[in-house]
């Protein structure tokens, strides 16, 4: 039985044969080669988390599937009342069985609710050393670190063209080089091309060549005390019991007839204007709250004037101070009984303001499209997870935890994400204590980027790093059965010293302190390919960073001995 992939390839081969029948005589060779090479297929499957996240951003959460999945042949008009009845029944069951889960009723909108989400209080259970398996094991050396969420945001963190770019942060060439607006006229395109040609990015005397910016970070202080082993934390998906539909009758059929059914997810929709949808995933132990698209105004649906401002667009001056934004978020959490006890102080994400100058049409620049002079409609507030006194950050160095989005226009919360049970297991792993390697990784911004000096197109910008602190870094670990699970690993967080205007999107450089996660990718590739992996066309693997960039990695600073 051929795999679907092989069938697809055969279909393409048939297509080729139709055009060139002479290829048929090589058919066996072609198919044999395909079979061999299928085993080494690259990962081109779109990340399901990315798809879900983008869908949410664009559309709203996917429709409720739990009740629907029981009745796949029913038409939508019938399914809605069925779902509603089912959910009502189950929520009633939940209120009985889990009175502390989530207060759905009681507590008026103006009255703070004191019945909090009981399951989001933190617990940590210790398990044996290396209890989560090989954290770097994902089936192949080249894929190891790909499971670590390296991308801070659009354009940042991940490898860029050519030789990586953990340090390229914002891949914006220059402030004046605002992207060409969609629908630009031919004259605008010509002018754009001319500006491109005139920019300093073109190396003098080298028509057609280009450079890109890459940050090189250095730290010349002392590293904190580093232990020989560190505790890694894995969130335990706490399944929330919500009873069964076994005895539920919905008027025209008996759901109990299916037997042994279990509610896994459901969505509640709040009526009235400015309503919310509350999505509860009982398996994952997670609740997400989103504005109900149908009951909120949508000024963004108004058409924009070509080459002019959009009436609905927010300006920078519309964005209030952090205290106002966190106040709105705090009030919402309190009103709905969501405890903040296990989280640190809220942090408002203002990273958009780093991007904004580079998107704005500057005087004399080509882009006159006012649509790019934006300020976001919403601001994100993050309440970072805290475990054993350590604060969690994502791999870009931004706080990680309960996320609340506030509409600047409406002064209301539009969504709450990552509200989840906080039951963790901890397990000891060998720690990275090699100061030289730590600073090597830090200098390049992450474990993904190649050493400096391999690409003549890179233009290095030096940045200083401030004194690091030991924090937790959110990461993903692929289990042996291919499932992804969230882990929090100790890491050094080096704040980036930003003097003057910069397009460096990140605030900090993160270096994981778990030994098996802290191997630079190029060294893994070297091992995997016996030292012969191509790092550049026609060249062999590069020497270790200590020899390529000694100014940054040597001398190693003192590491205070463990007491």
């Amino acid at each position, binding site marked *: 039985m051929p795999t679907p992939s092989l069938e697809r390839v055969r279909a393409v081969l048939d297509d080729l044969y139709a055009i060139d029948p002479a290829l048929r005589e090589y058919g066996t060779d072609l198919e044999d080669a*395909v079979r061999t090479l299928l085993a080494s297929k690259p990962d081109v499957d779109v990340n399901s988390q990315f798809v879900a996240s983008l869908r949410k951003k664009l559309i709203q959460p996917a429709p409720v599937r739990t009740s629907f999945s029981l009745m796949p042949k029913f038409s939508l008009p019938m399914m809605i009342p069925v779902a509603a009845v089912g959910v009502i029944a189950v929520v009633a069951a939940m209120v009985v069985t889990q009175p502390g889960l989530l207060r759905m009723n009681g507590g008026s909108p103006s009255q703070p609710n004191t019945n909090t989400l009981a399951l989001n209080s933190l617990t940590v259970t210790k398990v044996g050393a290396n209890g989560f398996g090989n954290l770097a094991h994902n089936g192949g050396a080249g894929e190891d670190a790909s499971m670590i969420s390296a991308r801070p945001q659009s354009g940042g963190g991940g490898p860029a063209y050519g030789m990586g770019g953990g340090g390229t942060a914002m891949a914006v060439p220059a402030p004046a080089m605002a992207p060409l607006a969609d629908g630009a006229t031919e004259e605008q395109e010509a002018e754009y091309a001319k500006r491109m040609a005139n920019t300093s990015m073109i190396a003098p005397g080298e028509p057609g060549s280009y450079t890109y910016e890459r940050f090189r970070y250095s730290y010349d202080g002392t590293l904190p005390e580093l232990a020989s082993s560190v505790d890694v934390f894995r969130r335990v998906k706490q399944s929330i019991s919500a009873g069964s539909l076994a005895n539920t009758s919905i008027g025209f059929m008996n759901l109990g007839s299916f037997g042994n059914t279990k509610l896994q997810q459901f969505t509640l929709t709040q009526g009235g204007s400015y309503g919310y949808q509350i999505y509860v995933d009982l398996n994952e132990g997670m609740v997400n709250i989103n504005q109900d698209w149908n009951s909120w105004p949508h000024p963004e649906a108004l058409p924009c004037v070509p080459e002019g401002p959009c009436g609905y667009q927010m300006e920078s001056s519309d964005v209030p101070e952090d205290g106002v934004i966190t106040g709105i978020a705090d009030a919402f959490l309190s009103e709905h009984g969501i405890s903040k006890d296990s989280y640190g102080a809220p942090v408002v994400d203002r990273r958009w303001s780093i991007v904004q100058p580079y998107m704005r049409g500057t005087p004399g620049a080509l882009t006159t499209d006012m649509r790019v002079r934006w300020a976001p409609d919403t601001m994100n507030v993050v309440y970072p997870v805290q475990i054993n006194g350590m604060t969690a950050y994502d791999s870009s160095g931004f706080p990680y935890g309960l996320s609340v989005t506030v509409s600047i226009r409406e002064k209301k919360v539009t969504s709450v994400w990552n509200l989840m049970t906080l039951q963790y297991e901890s397990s000891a792993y060998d720690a990275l204590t090699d100061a030289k390697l730590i600073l090597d990784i830090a200098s390049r911004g992450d474990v993904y980027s190649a050493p400096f000096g391999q690409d003549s197109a890179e233009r290095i910008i030096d940045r200083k790093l401030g004194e690091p602190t030991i924090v937790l870094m959110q990461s993903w670990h692929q289990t042996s059965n291919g499932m992804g699970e969230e882990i929090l690993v100790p890491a050094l967080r080096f704040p980036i010293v930003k003097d003057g205007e910069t397009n460096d999107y990140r605030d900090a450089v993160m270096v994981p302190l778990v030994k098996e996660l802290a191997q630079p990718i190029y060294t893994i590739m070297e091992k995997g390919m016996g030292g012969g992996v191509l790092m550049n066309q026609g060249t062999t693997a590069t020497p270790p960073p200590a020899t390529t960039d000694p100014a940054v990695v040597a001398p190693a600073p003192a590491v205070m001995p463990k007491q």
Partner: protein
Amino acid sequence: MEPGKSAQHTAFAAAYDEHVARIYRYHYYRLHNRERAEDLTSQTFLKAWERFDSFDSSKGTVSVWLYRIARNTLIDDVRRLHPSEDLGDAAERIPSGEDVMNNAIAREAMERARALLERLTPEQREVVQLRLWDELSYAEIAEMTGKSESASKMAFSRGLATLRKQAGPLAILLLLIPFIHS
């Protein structure tokens, strides 16, 4: 939300669900960089949503419409990051081995594919890529590139003939290898 908007919303959701993986692959095949492919996929659908009002199904399929937006998004992105590249080259961009940071085997295959594709004219290259990598029909390629269906077939055929003459029949397979997925 008025009923029309609601219906539009539903239609867009369906288009998203059906095409998001294909649009992601379109970008990934040309960049071989997961993060940038995701970024450009996001941009593609954000633009699509902004303009969904203007989409006219009587003038073409939503599939081709999305690919066209993806193509323009890619071109803009490559122009922005690689201003030295010919403006017309972005759509048939060939990712280099350097783009493939985390998969040595894919990197090698990509280098071979790159060497082959460079033998083609830009027009042939784009058609070959759209046909083999994105699995678009000739009708879709024609609609997307503004060429006729027969011209698209001709470009594809000539492209393959060039490859076969210069590199042998297995060369064609090499074009497929980096992009086979289950």
